[in-house]
């Protein structure tokens, strides 16, 4: 059984996977798996991007997002146009998908698209036409960094053990496994306004409403980062030798947040 393994930490945001899918499928007929994809508007592989934070603490996170090739696929439950191959890939039959515009609605992941010109519903085929020949799906084949991988489930046991899937609560059991999925950060800087100097080595303690505490220290630029934090309400305590301790309460974290410069007094 085949799986996709996506390491988001290795994704540089080149959009190569998104456009590779177009190079493979637009104008090219890969029946019996897919008719040609329209020139624009379909994203069988969609790269999602999100900007986190505020100047000067800003990062981007990119998430490649294809059909999840679910083992418990809502699409298959709702329509016979979908079927699962022995290798685990879910195919939207290009003949059965004809004229069925509502198939776009059957996938909770938004993976199904409507091709107006050919009057057919379409989605990622897992590049079954290539996989059959022992080749990699085009998006995976292109990826320069190793962020996208594809292969036999057994060979990825270790990665899968550490991975997450998209919306596990839906019970769809995707065959696309994610490592290092985006979370939020809280960052800031600690400094001494009197000296106009950054403070290195200040201790920062972040406590969530769940009672969990994390600790870090400011670096040579006075910067600190708490990465991979969940949304929630936090309080932050800043301690540095020779300075008065500062506490910031009720930090409501919905999006990644640059708390800004935290001045400390002697």
């Amino acid at each position, binding site marked *: 059984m085949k799986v996709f393994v996506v390491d988001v930490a290795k994704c*540089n945001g080149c*959009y190569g996977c998104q456009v590779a899918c177009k190079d493979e499928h637009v104008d090219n007929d890969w029946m019996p798996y897919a008719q040609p994809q329209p020139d624009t508007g379909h994203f069988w592989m969609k790269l999602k991007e999100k900007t986190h934070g505020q100047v000067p603490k800003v990062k981007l996170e990119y998430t490649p997002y294809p059909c999840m090739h679910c083992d418990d696929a809502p699409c298959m439950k709702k329509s016979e146009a979908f079927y699962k191959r022995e290798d685990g890939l879910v195919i939207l039959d290009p003949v059965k998908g004809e004229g069925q515009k509502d198939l776009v609605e059957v996938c909770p992941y938004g993976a199904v698209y409507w091709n107006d010109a050919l009057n057919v519903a379409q989605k990622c085929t897992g590049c079954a036409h290539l996989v059959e020949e022992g080749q990699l799906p085009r998006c995976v084949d292109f990826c320069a960094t190793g962020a996208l991988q594809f292969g036999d489930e057994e060979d990825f046991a270790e990665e899968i053990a550490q991975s997450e899937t998209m919306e596990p609560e839906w019970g769809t059991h995707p065959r696309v496994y994610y490592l290092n999925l985006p979370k939020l950060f809280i960052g800031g800087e600690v400094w001494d306004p009197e000296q106009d100097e950054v403070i290195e080595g200040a201790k920062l303690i972040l406590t969530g409403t769940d009672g969990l505490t994390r600790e870090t220290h400011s670096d040579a630029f006075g910067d600190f980062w708490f990465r991979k934090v969940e949304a929630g309400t936090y309080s932050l305590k800043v301690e540095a030798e020779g300075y008065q301790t500062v506490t910031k309460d009720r930090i409501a974290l919905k999006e990644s947040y640059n708390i800004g410069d935290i001045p400390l007094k002697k």
Partner: protein
Amino acid sequence: MSKKDKKTCIKGIGLCGFGSGSNSAAVDVQDGKVVRIRNFRYDKEYTPEEMKPWRLQVNDKIFEPTMKSLLPPYSMIYKKRTYSKNRIPYPMKRVDWDPEGERNPQNRGISKFVRISWDEATDLIAKELKRVYKEYGPYTVLAQGDGHGETKTVHAAHGCQMKLLDLLGGYTLQARNADSWEGWYWGAKHVWGQDPVGQGKQTNLFKDISENSKMVLFWGCDPETTPWGWGGQQASRLSYWFTDIGIKSVYICPDLNYGAAVHADKWIPVLPNTDLAMQFAIAYIWLTEDSYDKDYIETHTIGFDYLQRHALGEDGTEPKTPEWAEKICGVPARTIKALARKWAKEATTIAHSNGGSYIRSCYSHEPARMEVCLLAMQGLGKPGRNQFKFIEWQLFGSNEQMPAPRSEFIPTVKSAYTGWRYTMSPQFLPKTLIPKAIQSDEPLTWYGQTMAGYPREDQFIEYQYPIEGGAPIHMIWTDTPCWTTCWTGGNEMIEALRNSKIECIVAQHPWLENDCLFADIILPTSTKMESRDISVDTLSGNFNHLFYEEQCIEPVGEAKSDWEAVCEVAQKLGLLEQYTDGMSEMDLIEKGFMESGVQTKISFEEFLAKGYYMIPTADGWEDDIPGFGKFYQDPKQYPLETPSGLLEIFSQDLADVFPDDQERKPYPQWIAFGESHSESLLHPKSEKYPYLIVSNHPRWRVHANLDDISWLREIPTCKVAGPDGYLYEPVWINPVDAEKHGIQSGDIVKLFNDNGWVLGGAYVTERIRPGAIYQDHGARLDPIKAGEGDRGGANNLICVSNTVSKNCAGEVTSGFLINIEKCDLDALKAE
């Protein structure tokens, strides 16, 4: 071709041009159509053992080359360029250009084109050439034949017309200035020599940085964008590698560029073209805290006192304290101090591609040479302390420009190359001065041939146009029709192109884009899918390789290759035999192979059969002394190319030749504005134009190339759909600034200054600091009022037209003053 015909051809789809191939790709062709383009697999015909992959190891981590080429997205989808709707289908002539009667130069860019045949077109061109040479003498045809773009060898993209014009008696050369490297060329060279372009020695720096550097300063550097146009995505892997082995990546740039977005440990958002202030403040800290390498300064440099006095303000200028710098560059004084101290403490390498507006703005010679001085203050060439480049590996075929492990040899196809001739024509014009030369009736003078690759000393020679015995130009033959979208003051160029002195403009190009709109005769040329050729990939940072490029498809429409197009004109002039030296396409390919370096390894027949040859990594590469290591160890035995052989912080040559130059003095000095430029927030002009523009090399294009690819145009950072549905070139603006102007994401905005205006689609984002406005360069010209306003967002139209400084004829294409406003499209339409 039969219906079932299926084949895979190797093509190098890098866009550097000039015969410097890269980005080898496997092009699948079926039924005479390009089906898809995939990464080329090196191990198809050769084993990894034969290639001898290099290997870097730090602790338990390993970095190695890949067995596939690491294409950028747009090489992979290049068939979209081949089959673009912008392709010029057949030769054309402007309707109201009549060589026997009215030429209507004022209508260039306005009047339409009609179809003509190749026969008519080449007749017209041959006739015009003969007439112009006869009436005005030699040198009166301007050859615009430089430019990046498709990398072809036999069918070279740029400069094929030059040899023919030479056979006719000569031409005026558009001398491409050192555009990519302006600051290094006009500034850094005077400190460390480093001909040809003025950047640092690269030998074995992958290894040196990996083993010795603690911090890399990405100073005006985007390893996730500009390596794409040239070598592909090895730079991305390398950036991840640096992070993996614990090296701190510090990005200094006004925008959170695509590299910073994923790799930065620290982003220092500096205001555009104010780095010089920060650099001086760093020097100030090192000087006052005694944290620079005094011994090195003593033994490896001359003229340090001048810099010291200027930095400390002992020469009557203000002391360059971090607090002073903060007000200019927008970086908090405490951050500058922290950076200076970390840098003094830890082995630090500075990384560029070429430097961005740090190196391509007003007075770029100052930050460039100041950077060299800072590197000197921390012992340039000591382990982990060099200047690194993410692009142009093996530039000019030199191992000194190769930071990756050395290859057994660097293959070349130069002997089959028909384009750009690397030689000067007696009469020439720096590319930056062309509009002025056309518009003015006075002769022009300037210093230096200005071309990339010319030695430092050449900057001390004065040249003029027209030369004695020469005459002004009356005709233009361009195969690089994108002056308006790539050079300085494009709106002025549009005016110049309408000057009645220019009686005929011939453009040859695959696509109807940009300056083509202003031509009188247009020849359709082909993309590389349409002809056979030979090429190299020397920019990948994996392995050098040489390959045969089979013809993939028949020419699209009536296109011929650039070389064939010139052959057609040569034929009409009775010069075909001289032009080609009797060589056919296949003769040239074989010649290219026989002088490539590979001919001693395999036969031409085996080369054609296998399609390519992989050059192994050289044995003993590990022992190559990195960067400036030799100079560091023994400056007497391994001197630099400067007159003294040392780092010349004070240049006696500059002092002698330009004693009165207040803009480029003999040693680096703080300058914000001066005789040539007022593009600074410290200048009163900033009241009217309060923002500095960041006009980068485009992430989703290579300059003017690739703006039409629908698959890229759907990407959110590529284009912004306006309320009218038009896809505008994004304009990044910080929320703080956007609010002041009532601008929201998706609004159509107007960027303007005294040179005109361009539109864009607002992208309100934290990826740009307040005070700076970002719009990539090179968007396709779409004039609303040609010469004044443009819808496409081709911001080179409004670049300042003065050169780098008074005696430096380089370009200034970023970091200049503009204002922004929300654009009322209805009002604009009503006008």
